[in-house]
């Protein structure tokens, strides 16, 4: 059976529209990184060919069913080979999509296409969380609506019903989108379990494992965003001043081995369940920042001192799905809420989830303002023996320390000596591409005097140990990038950073030996576009993916607050639109043809149309035929009364009076 009788026939429309439904589903699933391009490109190409060649590019139902069975067997093999069942299922759906794309167009094929398209869309809802998902979703909505209209009209009594112009459906589409948004916002969330939550491939990160090789971490200007933070309860400008220049602490590495660092054995201090808020007590009362922190952080602190802002504020942190379990702790964090998994704090001051989350997370954190920020939160214990271990320190470092320290006065304290070493390192060159001797990375770094932050931090940490100061390095992030478009902070992978923690004056203090020139580098090529795109992604994530009952409450509160503010204006609008014309009309004899007469005409016209009479514009009632079912004399009386009130009587009928007359006329029929 051919479904291409002509390009404008309803059958031809149905063919294209159901193909649109199917392709919307394929695109939705293609957005997921779990799906191989090979699988989604096959139905896509088949659809293009089908669109181009029409029914000449079609297989019979039997032939198409072979493809479906092939897909079934193929996916069985995939499962045997260990492919995850969700991914295997999507592969099967895409092979099925290929089969129904090139199958002969029949009513059954149309149904297959619509159902497969819908399943693909639902699979996409589980396997992707991309903002681009909105596009195939809206496309699917349009094509489903149009194809259902078209299919309904096919093979009806008396032949196919013509399909109306698409522009008639634009209004319906807008209403449906608004309706869908209303349902989305209004319906409650239960979140009984998280198996069907949208997932994404986890980002692979280096530097957050127990054993880190030098050169693994922070060596690329990777613009991938790993975390976004937006303020909840203060002004965006204040937030910008407060949030920039903070260190986001990740993993602490204490044991130096020849080519890298290893984590020391730590003790678990406390565990929090998902429903509990993580309260991080202040271990060190110091409010001073290390003198060796970068200039930008000092500048920000100085700016903050001048601010008359509150000392604590709440931020929402949107964490991308990463392959590590560490919760990045910004300076001054005192409370973490709304964490989906249980978390534990250890003796090295590391906070991590019990298991690395497979999807994006939103956490709420309470921060102290920078002016009150101590070096560390939370409680940290005294140094371990391994943090003073000098066994693996390269000779080049010992010589370098001796050279720097001995050249100055001999009565310097350890802190002053450390400051000298830091100042020396600040004068070296920051170079991501500096050649590193894999066998002796620190030796080559000292010789070249150029390298990346991991080398700077390692050198200073080991130098501190030669001076008898316990030390370790910390891998995390620093600073971040402010997004002006969306007023939020972005931490990219290029903001990955290593610094040093030293035990001085009975407390751990942070020293950052990396030159400030490091923060002038960026891998973002189109900043304006990137800012807009990241804003869109955060908006999608913030208001769609992570939408919760609390958001609805906040939305309603905002709406209520706005209404409270707008009530005077609304009242004024009401007065302007209704009361003023009414009063004006009552106090003058001015007629308002657009106000009353036209409304009455509409009522009358509608009544006439129901009774088979269509009144052309400006045609008097007396020239119209008698409406169906109305006694002739009653109609003549009405026409006379109508003309009397319209042309001679100053008191015209109101809409209600006209309706009363018309009702009387209808009742006079029998």
């Amino acid at each position, binding site marked *: 059976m051919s479904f291409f009788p002509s390009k404008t026939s309803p059958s031809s429309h149905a063919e294209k529209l159901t193909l649109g439904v199917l392709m919307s589903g394929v695109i939705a699933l293609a957005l997921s990184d779990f799906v191989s391009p090979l699988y989604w490109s096959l139905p896509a190409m088949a659809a293009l060919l089908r669109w181009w060649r029409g029914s000449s590019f079609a297989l019979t139902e039997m032939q198409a069913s072979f493809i479906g069975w092939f897909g079934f067997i193929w996916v069985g093999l995939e499962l045997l080979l260990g492919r995850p069942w969700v991914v295997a299922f999507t592969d099967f759906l895409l092979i099925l999509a290929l089969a129904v794309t090139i199958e002969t167009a*029949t*009513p*059954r094929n*149309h*149904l*297959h296409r*619509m159902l497969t398209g*819908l399943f693909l869309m*639902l699979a996409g*809802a*589980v396997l992707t969380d991309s903002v681009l*998902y909105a596009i195939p*979703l809206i496309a699917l*909505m349009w094509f*489903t*609506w149009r194809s*259902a*209209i078209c*299919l*309904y009209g*096919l*093979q*009806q*009594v008396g032949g196919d*019903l*013509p*399909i*109306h*112009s698409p522009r008639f459906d634009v209004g*319906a589409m807008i*209403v*449906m989108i608004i*309706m*869908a*948004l*209303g*349902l*989305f916002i209004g*319906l409650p*969330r*239960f*979140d*009984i*379990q*998280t198996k*069907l*939550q*949208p997932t994404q491939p986890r980002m692979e990160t280096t530097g957050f494992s127990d054993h880190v090789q030098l050169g693994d971490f922070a060596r690329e200007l990777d613009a991938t965003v790993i975390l976004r933070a937006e303020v909840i309860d203060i002004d965006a400008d204040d937030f910008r001043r407060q949030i920039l220049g903070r260190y986001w602490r990740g993993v602490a590495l204490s044991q130096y081995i020849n080519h890298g660092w290893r984590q020391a054995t730590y003790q678990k201090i406390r565990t929090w369940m998902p429903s509990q808020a993580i309260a991080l007590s202040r271990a060190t009362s110091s409010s001073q920042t290390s003198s060796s922190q970068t200039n930008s952080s000092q500048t920000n602190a100085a700016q903050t001192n001048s601010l008359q802002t509150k000392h604590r504020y709440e931020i929402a942190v949107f964490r991308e799905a990463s392959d590590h379990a560490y919760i990045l702790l910004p300076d001054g964090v005192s409370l973490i809420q709304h964490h989906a998994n249980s978390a534990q704090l250890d003796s090295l001051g590391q906070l991590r989830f019990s298991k690395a989350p497979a999807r994006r997370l939103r956490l709420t954190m309470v921060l102290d303002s920078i002016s009150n920020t101590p070096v560390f939160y939370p409680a940290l214990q005294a140094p371990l023996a391994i943090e003073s271990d000098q066994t693996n320190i390269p000779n080049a470092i010992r010589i370098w320390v001796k050279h720097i320290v001995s050249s100055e006065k001999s009565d310097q304290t350890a802190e002053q000596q450390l400051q000298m070493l830091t100042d020396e390192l600040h004068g070296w060159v920051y170079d991501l591409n500096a050649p590193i001797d894999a066998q002796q990375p620190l030796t080559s770094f000292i010789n070249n005097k150029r390298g990346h932050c991991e080398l700077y931090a390692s050198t200073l940490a080991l130098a501190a140990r030669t001076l008898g100061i316990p030390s370790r390095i910390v891998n995390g992030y620093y600073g971040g990038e402010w997004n002006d478009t969306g007023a939020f902070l972005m931490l990219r992978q290029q903001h990955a950073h290593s610094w040093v923690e030293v035990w001085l004056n009975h407390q751990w203090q942070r020293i950052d030996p990396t030159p400030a020139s490091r923060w002038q580098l960026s891998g973002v090529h189109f900043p304006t576009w990137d800012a807009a795109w990241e804003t869109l992604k955060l908006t999608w994530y913030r208001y*769609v993916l*992570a*939408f919760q009952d609390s958001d609805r409450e906040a939305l309603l509160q905002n709406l209520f607050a706005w209404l409270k503010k707008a009530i005077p204006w609304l009242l004024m609008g009401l007065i302007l639109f209704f009361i003023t014309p009414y009063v004006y009309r009552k106090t003058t004899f001015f007629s308002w043809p657009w106000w009353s007469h036209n409304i009455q005409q509409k009522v009358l016209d509608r009544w006439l149309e*129901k*009774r088979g009479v*269509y009144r*052309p*514009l400006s045609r008097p009632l007396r020239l119209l035929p008698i409406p*169906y*079912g109305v006694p002739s004399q009653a109609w003549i009386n009405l026409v006379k009364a109508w003309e009397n009130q319209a042309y001679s009587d100053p008191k015209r009928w109101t809409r209600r009076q006209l309706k009363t007359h018309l009702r009387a006329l209808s009742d006079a*029929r*029998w």
Partner: protein
Amino acid sequence: MAYNPSDLRLPPWILYLLDALIAVRVPIGRYWHIGMTRAGALMFFSLLGLWAAAFYSGNNLLYLCGAMLTAIAMMALWQGVQLLRGLPLFGAYLPDFVEQCRPVVLRQDISDIARSTVSGLVDITWSEADLQLSARICAATRVQGDPRRHGDSNVQPNQSRLIAQLQSSKRCYHKLTKQRLTTSAPLGLWELTYQRQDLAIWAVLPQAVAGLRVQGLGQNLQHRIEGDEYHDLRMYTPGDPLARIHWRKSTLDPSTWRIKRFSQAEEQPQKAHLRVDLRLPSGATQAAFENLLGLTWHWLQSQPESTSRGHQSQLILGQQCFDCSQSDGRKAAIHAIAAALPEHHAPKHGAGFLLSLVEP
């Protein structure tokens, strides 16, 4: 409808369950009921599953998908409601009468719904009679404003049409009031029923029975047709004898039929009177009563409608009297024949031939 789930080759028991479901009608407001089609039932259960998954998981994208499909279903419902509310009264399109056991095909263009933007098929029934019509509503394909208001001849009018095959096996007369409109437009998901008041007459007449030879106008006409020349032609009106139609100047469309008028008949006013006794003796059957009415109907058909030349035809049907030479009187007589019931009293006195089942 081209997407019936039975196309999916579902097991018979599922289709049986679906059919049981689609028989259910749920009131959703005054005059409104809703049911499901087979496709609608599948859609309904898909939505249930989808929302269950969304509530279970808290996946907001599933919420979005569910909201989208629900919005489609609700919009379909809304447009169906709007379609039914915007339909004109169809009672006007019913024929004045039909004859028992003689099917009448109704194909009538509907010109009053140019504003409809939805195509669909609407079933029209009245609760008072076993009568079913279908309205085929076609949305305008090209509309640039209202064609009749602005005189835009480029706009294609929609091709909405009322289609029905009217047939009744039983003589009856109903004043139809409660009309029921049913549609599954625009998507074929929900079976919407709207009950409204649409007044119409449904008159089913008995089959005409020939054989009555009444002295009067009808008989005279029979003679004249054999030899006399006609004077002029006039338009056909229901009830005119078919023998007087000038077939060569007429087409199949009844609105083009022409009736021969004879000068002799006009010069010599004729009177035709018929009295029908509606009493049903104890031994007589209902079939005999119907036969009596069939004879009456045949007589009435043979009477021309004439108001200017003085022809008079009067029908006394039981206690009622009708002037059949007037269109109103003829119409009333037709309705009275359709509604006639056995009476206990002798017919009204008057001149003319008496038709009765009662032995003198």
